[in-house]
């Protein structure tokens, strides 16, 4: 057999270009408030929050294999902590940041407990704990049950300034979390987590520290959702437990991640964009919109489990953001092989699989 030197590369010309485009886009976005009014910035802020939520849920489900039906817990706690802190005298935006951090910290003790569960048990347990968090927040006399409380401290800023600041800190948070998740997925933890997702026992048998990897992803996702909640409050101004702790947030996250592309880096961003557009156009139709979301998520889960971007990635072998590895042969000027080998389960012989 002839010798062909193999190179393992992470960046391709395509991905280098995309990274450059991404940086340019972020730079352009940060200049946006200077040229566009509150109408545009406020809607983009919403989109940024959606992106954060989608990326976090995808990190949990698509990469770590953890289907959480309780992320709204951190969303709600982030907002709750923010409003609580602002009422004890903190500056509104300091409270937003501090609230997000505090709420994210609840994931630390929680993770060692709940990550011992898997699959459906993990899913429902997260739902139960989110319900408990909601109940406990209801107890706070400041919150007055479900009547809702405004984050009055935000009135210290006039509307235009507030919207601009919201825009910038949400953009910053989104970029921060995107970089964090990107770095995580590129690192040893990312590989570990995907190995766990594919086969936990096999991963453990080759030395992957399963619990540690899951914990990291879980904690990052918690901070992300907590930040999203606090940021949402900064824009929405009012905190009502039922809205922030509602299960609809999980429905949104599931839709965005599943439709966009579960298990890919770019997928949730695309999913968030789709969700944003749909909500803009159809959100007012009320329940039919939700029915549509649920139906789409179900159909995608059954028929197109890799989502839009995942399917494109698989079919054309392209990948924009370099979270994986590529094999290249030295002699043939750079034509690289397919990034992942996806043998069909059918050929594997298992008659129970498609």
């Amino acid at each position: 057999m002839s010798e062909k030197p193999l190179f393992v590369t992470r960046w391709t010309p395509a991905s280098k270009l995309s990274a450059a485009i991404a940086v340019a886009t972020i730079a352009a976005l940060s200049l946006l408030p200077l040229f566009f009014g509150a109408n545009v910035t406020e809607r983009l802020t919403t989109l940024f929050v959606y992106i954060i939520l989608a990326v976090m849920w995808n990190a949990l489900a698509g990469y770590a294999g953890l289907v959480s039906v309780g992320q709204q817990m951190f969303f709600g706690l982030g907002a709750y902590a923010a409003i609580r802190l602002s009422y004890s005298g903190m500056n509104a935006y300091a409270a937003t940041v501090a609230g997000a951090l505090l709420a994210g910290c609840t994931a630390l003790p929680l993770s060692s407990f709940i990550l011992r569960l898997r699959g459906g048990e993990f899913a429902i347990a997260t739902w139960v704990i989110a319900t408990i968090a909601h109940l406990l927040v209801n107890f706070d006399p400041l919150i007055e049950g479900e009547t809702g409380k405004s984050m009055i401290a935000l009135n210290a800023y006039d509307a235009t300034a507030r919207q601009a600041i919201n825009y910038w800190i949400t953009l910053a948070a989104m970029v921060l979390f995107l970089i964090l998740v990107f770095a995580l997925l590129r690192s040893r933890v990312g590989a570990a987590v995907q190995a766990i997702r594919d086969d936990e026992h096999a991963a453990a048998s080759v030395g992957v520290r399963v619990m540690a990897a899951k914990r990291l992803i879980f904690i990052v996702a918690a901070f992300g959702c907590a930040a999203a909640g606090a940021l949402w409050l900064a824009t929405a101004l009012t905190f009502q437990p039922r809205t922030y702790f509602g299960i609809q947030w999980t429905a949104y996250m599931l839709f965005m991640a599943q439709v966009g592309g579960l298990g890919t880096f770019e997928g949730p961003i695309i999913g968030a964009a789709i969700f944003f557009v749909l909500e803009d156009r159809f959100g007012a139709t009320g329940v039919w919109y939700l029915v549509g979301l649920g139906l789409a998520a179900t159909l995608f889960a059954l028929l197109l489990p890799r989502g839009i971007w995942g399917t494109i990635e698989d079919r054309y072998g392209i990948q924009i953001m370099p979270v994986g590895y590529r094999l290249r042969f030295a002699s043939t000027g750079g034509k690289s092989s397919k990034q992942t080998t996806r043998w069909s389960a059918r050929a594997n012989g298992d008659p129970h699989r498609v």
Partner: protein
Amino acid sequence: MIWLDQVIQGTLLGGYYALIACGLSLMFGVMRIINLAHGDFAILGVFAVWLLVVQTGISPFLALAAIIPLMGLLGWALQRWVFERSLRAGPLVPLLATFGLAIVIENLLFEAFGADTRSLAPEIGDLAFDSWVLTDRISVGHLAVLTFATAVVVLIGLHFFLKWTVLGRAIRATAEDPDTAELVGVNSRAVYALAAAIAVATTAVAGTFLAMRATFDPYSGPAQLIFAFEAVVIGGVGSLWGTLVGGIVLGVAQSLGAQIGPRGFLLTGHLIFLVVLAGRLFLSGVDSHAVLRRGLPGLNRSRSP
């Protein structure tokens, strides 16, 4: 004495929890699937019963009898079109698909029936109020006793079915080892469909009793799922009778908690659940990642080492 009264009420409430939980337990025991739309199926069933009652004026019990086979059919369809596909695609897909389904069901019900809470209590006349007075402080409602009795009957029925019938044996074999069951001639897909049909049919029964005791609305589903799961975790070491025990513990905890405050009812229930869950996770060692045990609930099993 108040405490005794609460314990009795809680125990009877446990009957309802056992009813809503047994379907979840069955489906998990046979197919290792947790149906996140389990509670919503119960609500769907009870809306169907309610509709039938309101349109035709027949008793809710008769309506339930009519709806049960339809719900069974729904379970069969669920297995055939959702679970069969999902099982092949990996452990995530059933969760994602059933959650999507839950959203669809809740909102379709809202679209059809609106947000009003409804109840079947008006349809059962005196049954909703009558009670047997045991002492001057303790009385037990006829309905509560009937619910508990129904739960016991359903559990006995399931136990008998699983232990003594041909289909029941086939279900137990498939639950243990679907691969080998196929090799001895059992059609595992048909078995799964049957188990799903039974599980969904039981949710209709549970939902109806919920509606007779209290109110329901399109978004009541998730709460029932949570109660069912809690009951299974608390009592079910993979046994159907465990769900009765779990239901009773949950019910008693809730009833006692209600004495403390208005939100104490739910909170104590969740607390007991967390304590038992933590106990199961930490006491049985790091390796037991499954709180809901594998294999079929219902019968005492001694496992080989």
